[in-house]
């Protein structure tokens, strides 16, 4: 074996061109495979700072098929008491707190959690303890847990932090524990307060609010699907028990990991599997390429192998020798691929495909760990087996070996050997075709998504968030006054075009607010019909600032205040659902919520659909805009400022304007609207960029492969070409001969590839947006592209064949 390895090294050094090309191709495909696997590893496989994450599930309340909401306490209590699928379960609610007493006031992400939420997750504190059952009771002690990074940032990791006070929302809490490094559930929490409420004693309206997150741990042997089915059955019971609250609601159970990826529809999984398929295809193309190179080299070594046979080597012995050469090449390619992957992985992490914000330190940090290294090793070895086996078996074959010795130095590799090369190149082109069509569809789909009409102009917009603390703004008129003063000041700043406030910035990655409504005078044709709209409470100039398009009527203005006629501006989609084919202006609708009554609102304006909801980006969801001054609420205040130029230049002036009204009011998430929007299509961008890169690599490898086979074919057919010239062939005849051969292979590969792509792209349907999986334009364009690349790849060998000197060609014999 050692001799085989030594000889294999010598051979690789003897043919540096072959060695370099083969290693480069292997490095590209092993590197791409390893890099993509590092993403799969980080997102789907790597352990997270909770216990046995694969047994943890998360429930989403669903409306209208797929319209995801948070869960309610009614559901939690029912699942806890009636389900047999879980070992334990707990509830948490994401919150934000104004933190004071530490330098500048700061808004921190946090949560209120049941003690069972943390025990269900199996999280062990880095310091101190988690909440006790007593602390969970109404009126329990004011205690808090802090996150590891928060502890480091604010306390420098000091162990004596336990027992110290923490001032949140103007109230002091005792720190009883520090959570482990990286743990930040739910959301991206940095502080946790105990959920001190007795569910049964809460008003039904509060129990029914969809503001909670339920985490549960599956019992051993219970599958996620079983739990899903059981909870769906319980949800149906709840519809009957609480029709006024639960009518039209269902539930979906997903794994906690899927929820952490923000992947409620499973697109990240599908995108990752599509990409793994893509890199797998790239690997096959690479294997075909290297196998072709090996075969071509093997044909040139037939005499050497025949001599070895004549000297007593068995076929098995020759296979071993040739296989050793392939495996050595695979290992060298694998090492180079790993080096490439080290360079690719950080770039890949920058394209992070997930929308979740939890466990960022784990899920957004792709790295090459032991698992990824093992994967790279296995891929390299499997690659070596795939591309090495055929050349080894062919090379060590018994056919005509003795004849080769007799033929001395004559060329070898006749029509039969060319058949193998031709078959491999046809396969390579077919795979490249499949990869290109898949990549083309995904890229096109992404482009379409990028060009979806947002319904507003995101350029030159600055956004920031505030929570007005209840302790300071206990009366609603105080909140309205703060809003009015702030907007007056900001509108008068130099460089500001206009400014407005809303309760949710369009497409932001936060809990968004919805409302059920009914249309005055309309009896639903379907008793199960539940009308839902995105619920936005906005200032007068908000829609103008957004640059929304007014289709009819007017925007909300300064006269829409408390005491005046309650008004609403609706989106086209809401108008279509509420009054199909009618003019909605002047018509009335009303918010509906069990246990509460709301005034009817008169429609005063209709705006073009605005993309408000991140999770419903692909559809037009109804939206209404109601005046901030008319609708009392304690929602966050989100400021949007339209600048004349670069909006970031206004950041300081806007902060100062707010501080001038309330020096203790923290602001957070100051960013441009475009930055906000860059998170919207992260999964699609990730897939599109990587599939495009994979498809381009596949095309490059296939064209190099085709070129190599054609060049080899010309070298093999030199004397034939000489004979043809001697028989009267003109250069154009020779050109046509070689081009014809190359194009035959290309067209055969393309034809097979079309059929393969037609089947493979069915699997991509759920990743595509407004695009058919068998989109004729994509299929035609890729066919033409591959045809063109085939022409180019054949052109150089054909041109060199055309200029062959017949005397030399015949002497080549």
């Amino acid at each position, binding site marked *: 074996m050692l001799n085989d390895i030594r000889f294999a090294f010598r051979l690789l050094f003897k043919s540096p061109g072959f060695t370099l090309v083969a290693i480069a191709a292997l490095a590209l495909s092993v590197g791409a495979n390893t890099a993509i696997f590092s993403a799969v590893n980080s997102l789907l496989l790597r352990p997270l700072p909770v216990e046995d994450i694969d047994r943890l599930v998360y429930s989403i309340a669903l409306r209208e098929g797929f319209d995801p909401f948070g869960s309610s306490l009614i559901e939690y209590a029912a699942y806890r008491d009636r389900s047999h699928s879980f070992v334990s379960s707990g509830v948490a609610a994401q919150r934000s707190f104004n933190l004071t007493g530490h330098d500048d006031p700061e808004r921190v992400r946090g949560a209120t959690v049941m003690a069972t939420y943390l025990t269900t997750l199996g999280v062990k504190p880095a310091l101190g303890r988690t909440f006790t059952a007593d602390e969970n009771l109404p009126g329990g002690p004011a205690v808090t847990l802090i996150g590891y990074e928060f502890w480091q940032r604010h306390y420098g990791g000091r162990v004596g932090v336990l027992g110290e006070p923490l001032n949140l929302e103007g109230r002091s809490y005792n720190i009883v524990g520090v959570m482990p490094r990286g743990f930040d559930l739910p959301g991206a929490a940095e502080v946790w307060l105990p959920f001190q409420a007795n569910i049964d004693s809460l008003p039904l309206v509060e129990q029914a609010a969809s503001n909670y997150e339920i985490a549960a741990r599956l019992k051993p042997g219970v599958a996620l699907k079983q739990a899903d089915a059981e909870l769906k059955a319980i949800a149906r019971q709840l519809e009957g028990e609480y029709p006024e609250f639960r009518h039209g609601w269902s539930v979906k159970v997903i794994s906690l990991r899927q929820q952490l990826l923000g992947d409620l529809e499973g697109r990240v999984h599908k995108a990752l599997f599509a990409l793994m398929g893509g890199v797998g295809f790239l690997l096959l193309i690479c294997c075909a390429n290297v196998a072709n190179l090996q075969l071509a080299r093997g044909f040139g070594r037939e005499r050497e192998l025949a001599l070895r046979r004549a000297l007593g080597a068995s076929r098995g012995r020759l296979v071993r020798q040739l296989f050793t050469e392939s495996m050595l090449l695979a290992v060298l390619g694998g090492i180079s691929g790993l080096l490439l992957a080290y360079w690719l992985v950080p770039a890949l992490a920058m394209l992070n495909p997930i929308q979740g914000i939890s466990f960022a330190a784990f899920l957004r940090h792709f790295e090459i760990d032991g698992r990824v290294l093992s994967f790279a090793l296995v891929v390299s070895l499997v690659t070596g087996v795939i591309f090495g086996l055929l050349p080894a078996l062919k090379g060590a074959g018994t056919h005509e070996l003795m004849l080769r010795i007799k033929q001395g130095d004559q060329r070898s590799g006749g*029509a039969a050997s060319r058949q193998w090369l031709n078959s491999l190149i046809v396969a390579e082109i077919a795979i490249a075709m499949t990869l290109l069509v898949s990549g083309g569809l995904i890229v096109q789909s992404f482009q379409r998504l990028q060009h979806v009409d947002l319904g507003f102009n995101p350029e030159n917009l600055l956004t920031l968030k505030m929570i007005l603390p209840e302790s300071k703004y206990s009366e609603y008129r105080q909140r309205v006054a703060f809003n009015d003063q702030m907007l007056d000041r900001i509108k008068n700043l130099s460089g500001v075009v206009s400014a407005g406030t809303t309760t949710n910035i369009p497409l932001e990655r936060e809990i968004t607010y919805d409302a059920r409504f009914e249309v005055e005078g309309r009896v639903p044709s379907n008793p199960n019909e539940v009308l839902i709209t995105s619920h936005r409470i906005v200032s007068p100039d908000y829609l103008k600032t957004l640059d929304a398009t007014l289709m009819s009527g007017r925007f909300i203005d300064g006269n829409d205040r408390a005491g005046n006629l309650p008004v609403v501006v609706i989106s086209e989609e809401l108008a279509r659902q509420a009054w199909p084919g009618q003019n909605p202006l002047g018509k009335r609708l009303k918010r509906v919520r069990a246990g509460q009554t709301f005034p009817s609102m008169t429609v005063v304006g209709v705006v073009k659909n605005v993309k408000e909801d991140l999770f419903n980006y692909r559809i037009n969801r109804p939206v209404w805009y109601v005046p901030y001054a008319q609708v009392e609420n304690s929602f966050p205040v989100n400021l949007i400022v339209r600048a004349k130029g670069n909006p970031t230049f206004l950041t300081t002036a806007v902060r100062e304007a707010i501080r001038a009204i309330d020096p203790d009011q923290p602001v957070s998430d100051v960013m441009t609207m475009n930055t906000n929007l860059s998170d919207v299509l992260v999964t699609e961008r990730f897939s599109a960029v990587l599939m495009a890169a994979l498809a381009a690599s596949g095309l490059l490898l296939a064209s190099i492969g085709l070129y190599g086979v054609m060049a080899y074919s010309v070298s093999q057919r030199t004397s034939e070409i000489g*004979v043809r010239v*001697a*028989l009267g062939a003109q250069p154009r005849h020779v050109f046509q001969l070689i081009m014809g051969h190359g194009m035959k292979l290309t067209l055969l590969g393309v034809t097979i590839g079309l059929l393969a792509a037609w089947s493979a792209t069915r699997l991509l349907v759920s990743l595509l947006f407004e695009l058919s999986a068998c989109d004729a334009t994509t299929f035609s364009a890729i066919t033409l592209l591959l045809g063109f690349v085939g022409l180019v790849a054949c052109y150089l060998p054909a041109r060199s064949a055309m200029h062959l000197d017949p005397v030399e060609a*015949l002497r080549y014999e």
Partner: protein
Amino acid sequence: MIRLHNVERSYPLGRGQLFYVLRDIDLDISQGDFVSVMGPSGAGKSTLLHILGMHDHGWTGEYFFDETATHHLKAKERASLRNEKIGFVFQQYHLLDDLTVYENLDIPLSYRHYSKSERTALVGDALDRFQIVGKKDLYPRQLSGGQQQLVGVARAIIAQPKLLLADEPTGNLHSSQGEEIMKLFRKLNEEGMTIVQVTHSEKNASYGKRIVQLRDGWIV
């Protein structure tokens, strides 16, 4: 028909030196002649044949073919003249492996603006004339060496050239097959075909009308 005057062929050896393969060749070949070019290996026999066949363009001197001064022609014009007037027979037969006998015979015609019907007729005639109709659908590897060379000769003359050039046409055949081929050459010559063959065999040379001896690139 052919007149060579002061033809020389050399290859650069580096440092400005030249290696001469052919020196000061003066040769006249008349219509209907049958010339055998002989000499030891490396004497320049094949080179002379390739110059006569207008494959080789790197020579100097004068070469008249049917009074056409080929040394003044461009490569494309020489190729055209070659296609019209010259046929080749090779030592290794050089039949195209992937084509049947019929297709091998058709190949030269396909390069020469013959219509499909003319090509069919000419191939049919050649198959008849060389009595290989029964082999027309076979591939070269299914034929004996003699049969392959027979097809090689048929292919060389199918486009009715005035000059047939043969480079060791019996070199790969055993004696009886070689004799058959030489008898065929003699018959073709008697029918008016001008033939120039390169051979090492005195016996084969005796089928020709005269012998040209080459040694170290010179006619001796």
